[in-house]
């Protein structure tokens, strides 16, 4: 059943399917971002994937197409899942990182794409209303990219200084640089990182 989906996709799109795997039983296909919309339409109509369960981004700072858009599709009638991924953006993420919007296939993609835009800065071409969803409009940057520091804050109203308050303020940022698990955590800096 599951292998069949990947076979269908491969025979239909050929070289636009870069790689496939079925790790843990999740059928996954990495597809050409230029054919993203076409392949998704095919999944909707031919494979009967009527539900776009999830759409999100993943940042791999050490890879060359750095960002990955991951979509999980599900067919209620046929009970199959398929995961499609497209890799976009160069290492420095210069210029617009773009991919086609699928909001005209599934209405649910509207917010999911807005969230992905908000968190990763991926622009969805043809999206009806691409605004930030979770963060506020004044926010600068895209927080889920690995080079966005977790301890950074962007308060809309500046913190009080000790002079203004007239008393010593032990104001601490939510995350200190020395907080957390120093062994377990990896530091990512823009553009460079460990090769996997």
């Amino acid at each position, binding site marked *: 059943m599951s292998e069949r989906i990947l076979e269908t996709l491969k025979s239909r799109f050929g070289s636009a399917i870069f790689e496939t795997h079925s*790790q*843990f039983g*999740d059928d*996954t296909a990495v597809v050409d971002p230029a054919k993203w919309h076409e392949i998704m339409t095919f999944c909707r109509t031919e494979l009967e994937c*009527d*539900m*776009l*369960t*999830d759409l*999100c981004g*993943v*940042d791999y700072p050490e890879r060359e197409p750095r960002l990955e858009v*991951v979509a*999980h599709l599900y067919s*209620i009638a046929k*009970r199959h*899942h398929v*995961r499609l991924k497209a890799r976009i953006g160069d290492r420095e993420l210069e210029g617009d990182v773009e991919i086609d919007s699928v909001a005209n296939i*599934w*209405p*649910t993609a*509207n*917010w*999911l794409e807005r*969230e992905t835009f908000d*968190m990763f800065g991926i622009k969805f071409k043809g999206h009806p209303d691409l605004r*930030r*969803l*979770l*963060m*506020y409009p004044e926010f600068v940057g895209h*927080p*889920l990219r*690995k080079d*966005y520091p*977790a301890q950074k804050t962007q308060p809309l109203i500046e913190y009080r200084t000790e002079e203004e308050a007239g008393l010593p303020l032990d104001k601490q940022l939510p*995350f200190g640089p020395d907080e*957390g*698990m120093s*062994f*377990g*955590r*990896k530091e990512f800096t823009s553009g460079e990182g460990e090769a*996997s």
Partner: protein
Amino acid sequence: MEPIDLELEEGELELPAEPMHLNMGPSHPAMHGTVRIVLELTGETITKADVQIGYLHRGFEKMCERGTWAQVFPYADRLNYVSPMLNNVGYALAVEKLCGIEVPERCMWYRMALGELARISDHLTCTGAMAMELGAFTPFLWFIKAREMLWDIMEEETGARLTHSFGRIGGMASPPTANFKAMCREALPKLIGLMEEGEKMLLKNRIFIDRLENVGNISGADAIGLGWTGPCLRASGVPYDVRKAHPYLKYDEVEFDVPVGTRGDNLDRFLVRLAEIRQTRRIIEQVLERMPDEGPVSVDDPRVMLPEKKDVYTTIEGTIQHFKLIMEGAKVPKGEVYSYTEGGNGELGFYLVSDGSGTPHRVRIRPPCFTITQGLQKLITNSMLSDIVPTFGSLNMIGGECDH
């Protein structure tokens, strides 16, 4: 009585009409979990609505990338804070799928029992809050009294009423207490009694029914297109339940029905939730029947499980194992997985990416309310302003989950 403006021309009577803009929320008693809806009204009819979320955004996914795999459990608790156990179990199952671990049978039953108790608590809160927002305060108190019984059981089992952090990779924090089964068996009939009492008060109330019936209708196809899952989708007549369609734990071994609605209106969503509480009771009774009283609840796998405290204090192996697991975290094999369970509101998915280290590379949560809240705009456009309250209540939007 004669109208006084008989002699006036018709045109003179017309007042300039322009749409009125109204902000509802983010601090509004009916907007549980801080949501803002920007409305454009003509009279009392909503012509445009823009639902804005994110007021409870805490950077859950970013925080998960900073700690170890086990440190995600407290965050998972705070996603859907009405049924934290379901989130705990959902996340534990996802990591176990990635590690290739299968928990012992006793643990599976235990997770099901606790999860279903949490599901009742979720549905009771939603239906109760919905009634309260429509002015029926007494049924809300009944429902909350029933929920209190569940939380007493949870407190006895886990030590916390709300944020349990009870799941572990490869098991649970501790085995069921000696009188867990007795407590459940005692509480369940009482709880159903209270629920039925409240239900009678509501379903024979004309005002309540009128405000729910045929308000906020959505067809099954539209609901699927919007990515709805859980009770809201089933109220539209689509019998999709992860527990039936893709059974996990031992759900394929228990008998239960999936209640579905017909019209997909607010009343259907209300009734589906109440019907699910009854089905959940059936599940819990079967689970209690079949859960073994003896046996381990956690896998015997030193890669993920902490050693016993007596070993930590007396042996060097135990100390090192404990140190490594706490400081570096359990090493999860490289790979990616999407694991999904039936949460209180629908399909709760975790998409995990591991780079082989003790820290997650990416923890993506697929919260069921996120897509459901997206549908609110469609439901309330062209309806009356006062319909927002029951419609929004019936969707059971949980801020912590929706806003990540």
